[in-house]
Each structure stands twice: as C-alpha cells, then as structure tokens.
C-alpha cells in the first residue's frame, strides 16, 4: 500500500523559507537479513526521492540500505510562486509512488 504524509504550508509570503516534510510507507528491506532457514531476504528499498516545484527539481535524495523503514525527510526551499510540489519515490522491483501538495504564495 502506497501512502504518504506530506506537510507543506498552505500559504506563505514570497521569499519565505518554508519547510517541507514527507513520510512514506515502505519496508526498506536491507538485503542483508536472512530468514530462519538461512535464505537471504532480497533487498527491497527506495533508491531515490525527488521533489519538483512547478516542474523544476528542487530536491533529490538517494537512499541506501541503512535508511530505516518508512523514511521521513525534511528539507527547506524558498517560496517563489503559487503552485504545486510533486513528490516521487522510486525503488527496487519497479516501486514507484507519487504525491503532490499545493501552496499559495502571496
């Protein structure tokens, strides 16, 4: 189940530094663990996250096996214009999840 919690301020003044917080649901299986029978549990992680602000990429992060399950990210940007933030998580086994949030800049 792909679910994400996004926190973007609904309103901001032009030039304000705003904080964006994202939390997404993912098991982040490291690929180092073994089952009771000794078989390796295959790696299943998110490998990359991008945030676009009205189409322009403003933040990107690469993920590695040491990142905990349900990764939480917080980052900052400058509110320039009203519009949309698009978030995308890409991972192993063709995993892809998207979310978006809008902002009004005055």
């Amino acid at each position: 189940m792909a679910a994400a919690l996004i926190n973007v301020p609904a309103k901001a003044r032009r030039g304000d530094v705003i904080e964006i917080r994202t939390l997404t649901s993912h098991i982040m299986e490291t690929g180092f663990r073994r089952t009771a029978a000794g078989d390796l549990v295959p790696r299943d992680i998110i490998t990359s996250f991008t945030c676009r602000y009205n189409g322009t990429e403003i933040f990107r992060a690469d993920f590695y096996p040491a990142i905990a399950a349900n990764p939480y990210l917080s980052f900052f940007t400058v509110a320039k214009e009203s519009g949309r933030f698009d978030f995308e998580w890409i991972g192993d086994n063709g995993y892809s999840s998207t979310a978006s949030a809008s902002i009004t800049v005055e």
Partner: protein
Amino acid sequence: MSFWRAIALAALCAAAPALLAGEIPPEARRSGYSFMGPDTRAMQDDDTSNPGMLFVLDGEALWTKKAGSADKACADCHGDARSSMKGVAARYPAFDKSLGHPVTLDQRINLCRADHQQATPLPYESRDLLALSAFVAHQSRGFAITAGDDPQLKPFVAQGRDLFMRREGQLNLACTNCHDDNFDKRLAGAPITQAQPTGYPLYRLEWQTLGSLERRLRSCMTGVRAQAYDYGSPELVTLELYLMSRARGLPMETPAVRP
C-alpha cells in the same frame, strides 16, 4: 519477649498496606510517553511525522472496502468511524456475551469479519489487521481508558492480575517486579516504564513497524526467557485486560510512537 512481639506486629501492620497495594495509584500513573526523550515525543506529537499515521490512513481505506462473500464493508454497518468508533477502543478488551469471555479489539474485528462479512480472519500482526485496529483505536485518541469497568469482566481482570504478579521464565521475574516496583529506573540504559498500554497498536522504532500489545507482551516474556503465550491465547487477553484496567483514566494515544 512480648515487647519484641509487639514491635514485630506493629512493623507487619505498617508494611501490610504497602504489600497489598501493589497497584500504582491513579494520580501516579504515567504513560510511556513521559519516559521518552524529546525527539521521540516530537515524532509522536506531529501527525505528519508519526509513522503510525500511515497505518491509520491504510485502515481508513480498508474501513470502506468491501470484503468477504457478504460483500460488505465495515462502513456499511458502522457508518462513519469518526462518530461510531469514538471511545470504543478505550473500553477494550470487552466482554463478549455469546463467547462468555473478553475479546481484544483485533479479535472483535476478526469476529466481525467472520460473522458479518463472511470473510477469512486477518492473521495476527498482519498489516491489514494492524491498520484497521489502529484506525479504530485512533478514533479514541484523548479518551480516558475505562476497560475492565464491566462487572462481568471482574474474574478475568483478576486472572490477568495473577499473571502479572506471577514469576516466570529462567530469569524468574514477574511483570510487577519491573513495572510496579522499579519503574523510573533503568535496564541496560533503557528506562523502565510503568507498562501502561495507552497507545496500542503503536509504532516501535525498534520494530520499524506498528505492533500490537500482544507482540509487546510476548517480547517481554522472551526477555525473561519464558515461553511466550500464543497470539490470541486467553492468557494474553486477560493480561491485556488487566493492563488496560490498571491504566484506567489515562488518555488513549493511538497511534503512539515508542523507542
């Protein structure tokens, strides 16, 4: 000699209330939240950083999803959970008249699935069951716990209390030895809490997922090197019931975050 006997008697009388009390008085009851560090508290307080809310969202979707051969969703009988499930989890485990014993919220969900949806029961600790019970229990956030108030539950609360007081495992420890007698101290660097089950199902950072109170109880039992009871066993249910009645009056926090 009678002088010494009188002193011994006096000492016994003075100690008796303390020996009998055992229970933490209502004003001294503290949620596990108060034992946590500021970072973990902040994580729980903000619904956009609390990973338990991901499960609540999943549970909300499952609430309206039709299941089983009856092709009914929870919402078809119970309507909007925001009003119909308000305060319900604060009363669980609750007495089931037809079964004649208490059932946990997870068991109630599965009974509902069997009786009204004609669906297969969800396995314990499965994502769907945790999500549904988190969604239902979330509707009681802020409600004071009242589980165990039903007079029919009295013998079961007493059974749970017996288990709580009984030493077990290779370390020969009872729940009470840590959680009544030694809370606020530390065990290998980790704070010992009062074991008040205010926020279940809760997100444990150690588990990296949501888990039930039964999972927590089982890991404590493994910790004292005892054979843990099976999920849904009468022992775990009565223990859960006693713990909830012991936390009477504390507000529900579901989904809580714990280290």
